[in-house]
């Protein structure tokens, strides 16, 4: 998503004296993109990669919605249906949302803390290029005997030990993506802790850096746990171990404990950087400083710590003892408190500001409004007896799409529109941006709101066919899904148009935007800050 074309990056005269240092991207397409160690180029690669994966996962989802448009089996058979649900989840979580946030981190962290680049520039290249073989394995797995894994994105044993070769490919893909995430996280932690501009204490650091610092620690903590779980599945499958096989002394439920010990922090890995983006966009368009900066930092940290002690709320129906159910219910309820604090702080930031509603702000307000609905359904699901009634129904599907699509994805859209003028040097098409917002938010709700009703009425998730009484809401959801999918092409059009040209953005196109990134030229010079700025 960059228009920093070769030989163009340092062409503007923004006060950066040219000396004999290497200041531009290497010549040649291959050297420029494949060998790059530049944080902005790598950020661009990450963002394009994740957008490609987003469209791929989206096509899988639309196939599911086409099958579910009416009762009966029409388009895919049940095996393929399960493969599609599974791969939709894996691709969206590991291929789209996580790499997209790493892309944002690459682009923004050095510019926000006044650094020239990321700490480990070569490892940065490696952590991106690992994603390509991983994604290829996932796509190839559709074409091996038995097809892609169909055990759900959670890959629960012993169903996952029953799968064909596609399961092994998925395990390897996740291993590689995990390695990539850990490298990315080490890089981010090191950069933030060591390369801040003089005077920028931790408590003066931009919120996006704070949320990513905490996210990176979460990733380092839990990605090895996932790797362990899926390695055990691998050895159960091929080397005669019985970690999850009761007949050999193992326990299928242990897989779920290990998986969700990774899986719940993973949920926050996918939302904390989104909180960071929103904490930049809202103050900029309210023309008012972020309300309660320090309480935002504490709230983010609390969410991260709590995320390690709530995992079994995904497992209330496995039959954990009453004491366990009560502990995990109370602990889960507590997460609502720091999350609530964040929402209150954003609204207090808007309060008595001087607001305008350009596309980034629209997405930010849309995020706060719709994400909070997902937060409320999360609170309802935290109540064990209600959860037992709604576990594995469409209510859960509605809940996590409200927090992941309206949460993570909308925040990323806000971030892209907010920083796109910085990245490309051009203003994007405001009219198309607004159209993208309204189409997304309306179709999103048409798709996912009826799923609450389906779940309450008892329709299970991951089924290719359903009772005819569920037909109408499913039809509405399918129509919404196609509308939502097509709306994303508007986004692609805006991006391409903005890269090609548009009104000059200037250093800071937003009246209220604060932060070091806005002191740089648009697009920024090849090595963002050659001399560290002084922060008071």
């Amino acid at each position: 998503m960059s228009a920093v074309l070769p030989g163009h990056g340092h062409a503007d005269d923004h006060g950066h004296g040219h000396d004999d240092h290497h200041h531009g991207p290497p010549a040649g397409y291959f050297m420029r993109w494949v060998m790059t160690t530049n944080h902005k180029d790598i950020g661009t690669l990450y963002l394009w990669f994740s957008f490609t994966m987003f469209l791929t996962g989206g096509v899988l989802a639309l196939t599911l919605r086409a099958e579910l448009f009416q009762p009966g089996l029409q388009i895919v058979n049940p095996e393929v249906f399960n493969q599609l649900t599974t791969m939709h989840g894996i691709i969206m979580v590991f291929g789209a949302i996580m790499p997209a946030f790493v892309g944002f981190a690459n682009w923004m962290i050095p510019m926000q803390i006044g650094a020239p680049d990321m700490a480990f520039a070569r490892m940065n290249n490696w952590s991106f290029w690992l994603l390509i073989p991983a994604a290829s394995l996932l796509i190839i797995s559709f074409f091996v005997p038995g097809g892609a894994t169909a055990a759900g994105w959670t890959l629960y044993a012993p169903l996952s030990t029953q799968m064909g070769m596609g399961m092994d490919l998925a395990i390897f893909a996740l291993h590689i993506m995990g390695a990539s995430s850990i490298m990315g996280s080490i890089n981010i932690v090191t950069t933030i802790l060591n390369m801040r501009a003089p005077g920028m204490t931790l408590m003066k650091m931009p919120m996006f850096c704070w949320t990513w610092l905490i996210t990176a620690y979460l990733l380092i903590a839990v990605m090895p746990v996932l790797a362990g779980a899926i390695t055990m599945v691998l050895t159960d499958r091929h080397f005669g171990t019985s970690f999850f096989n009761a007949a050999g002394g193992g326990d299928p439920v242990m897989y779920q404990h290990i998986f969700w010990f990774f899986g719940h922090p993973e949920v926050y890995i996918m939302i904390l950087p989104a909180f960071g983006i929103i904490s930049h966009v809202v103050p900029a368009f309210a023309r008012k400083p972020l309300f309660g900066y320090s309480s935002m930092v504490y709230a983010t940290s609390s969410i991260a710590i709590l995320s390690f002690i709530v995992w079994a709320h995904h497992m209330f129906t496995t039959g954990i003892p009453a004491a366990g159910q009560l502990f995990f219910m109370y602990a889960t309820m507590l997460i609502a408190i720091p999350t609530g604090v964040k929402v209150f702080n954003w609204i207090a930031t808007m309060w008595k500001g001087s607001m305008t509603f350009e596309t980034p702000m629209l997405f930010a307000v849309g995020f706060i409004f719709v994400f909070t609905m997902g937060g409320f359904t999360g609170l309802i699901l935290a109540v064990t007896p209600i959860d037992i009634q709604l576990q594995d129904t469409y209510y859960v599907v509605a809940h996590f799409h409200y927090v992941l699509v309206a949460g993570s994805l909308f925040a990323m859209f806000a971030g892209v529109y907010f920083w796109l003028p910085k990245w490309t040097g051009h203003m994007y098409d405001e009219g198309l941006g607004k159209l993208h917002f309204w189409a997304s938010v309306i179709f999103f709700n048409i798709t996912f709101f009826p799923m609450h009703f389906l779940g309450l009425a008892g329709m299970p998730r991951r089924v290719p066919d359903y009772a005819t009484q569920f037909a109408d809401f499913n039809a509405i959801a399918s129509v919404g899904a196609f509308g939502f999918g097509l709306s994303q092409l508007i986004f692609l059009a805006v991006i391409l148009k903005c890269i090609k040209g548009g009104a000059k953005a200037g250093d800071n196109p937003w009246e209220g935007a604060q932060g070091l990134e806005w002191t740089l030229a648009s697009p920024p010079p090849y090595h963002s800050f050659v001399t560290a700025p002084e922060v008071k």
Partner: protein
Amino acid sequence: MKPFPNLSTFVSPAVNTKDICVIFFIYEVMMFAGNHVKHAVSRGAARFALAASGLLTAPLAFAQKTVDMQGGPAVRQLNLHAPATKIAADIYDLHTGMLIVCTLIFIAVFGAMFYSIYAHRKSKGHKAEQFHESLAVEIAWTVIPTIIVILMAAFATKTVLAMKDTSNADITIKATGYQWKWGYDYLKGEGEGISFVSNRSTPKEQIDGTAPKGENYMLEVDNEVVVPVNKKVRVILTAQDVIHAWMIPSFGVKQDAIPGFIRDVHFTSLKIGKFRGQCAELCGKEHGFMPIVVNVVSDADYTKWVAEEKKKLAAKQDDPNKVWTADELKVRGEKVYAANCVACHQATGKGVPPAFPPLEGAKMVNGPKDNQIAILLNGRQGSAMAAFKQLSDVELAAVITYTRTAWGNKGEMPSVAELKAARAWDAAKMTQLAAKQP
């Protein structure tokens, strides 16, 4: 009261003669084209064409009326099922309470936000104030939500404990999840000893759209679980192969069935009638086709049902002195195969490789019979193949005979006596092993 027109009249696959002609024509065209492409691809495409043509012509066709399902979902149901047990009623109330509290908070919070969006905008000339901190406010909006969420959890605590209390049950039933059906054994209380397997009874034609869908489409079974009203029923759950989940929304019951482990739940239905649910944990390709139906009857009807079941059970027992011929075993074996094996190995014997290997021409059914006997009795470690020792010697001999003669297979055939001997040898071995344990 219909708040908006019934959309299902447009989207349900309503089939009449005109549709069938159109669909048949398209299907023929697809099949013709299919000579040059892989069969599976053309079938998928034909299905798509079928669906598309159904959609286009559906509004012209007569409407297929969808009605509420008894004990299952209502048409466009918006809320939880009408509760049939005390616990389901508690869950219903908890949910309603949570929804009201959440809605009030939602209105308060977003009322403030939208007021601010309306009033504090630049286009209305509002000047930004620069305040950005208030310890008092931060404390207030930390403490008040803490109190609210703790209260929410506290209200639910009693129900959590009630759901876990499976003591003093009148009837205990074991439910076993198989890929892809449920097996039931009445273990304790009136009806003890009754045992049956419960399969989906919705016909394939309704699923494929070649026959109109019935009122209980997808949530109907051949053998329902029958229980008496107002009696505490404890359901013990386990599974044979992968994790399944047993749920009846009207009872507020959902519990995973875990292979190799035992879990339990309970319900006391206060209402007579049928209550429906389905498997709620992804368990493989037929996961969506594993319904559960509980038929709650009066005490008198229950006693009558138990007597009938016992009679049927006695009639089903094979005469232990009967000598079975190979042909008799083959005929019997086909039925056993259809009830136990067909989901994985398929009626064609071609399986669904690689998870479910083919039997047609396989070494297993053409080579020495002892291997096959051992695998049927004990299952195969590390594969989806479960043990089938719950079948009788006659049934096992029959199904082995069938698989060794069907689809052009030519394997040696076992006798009932050999099965009996193998089972006895297995049992002796187990006793020996058990004795060796310190």
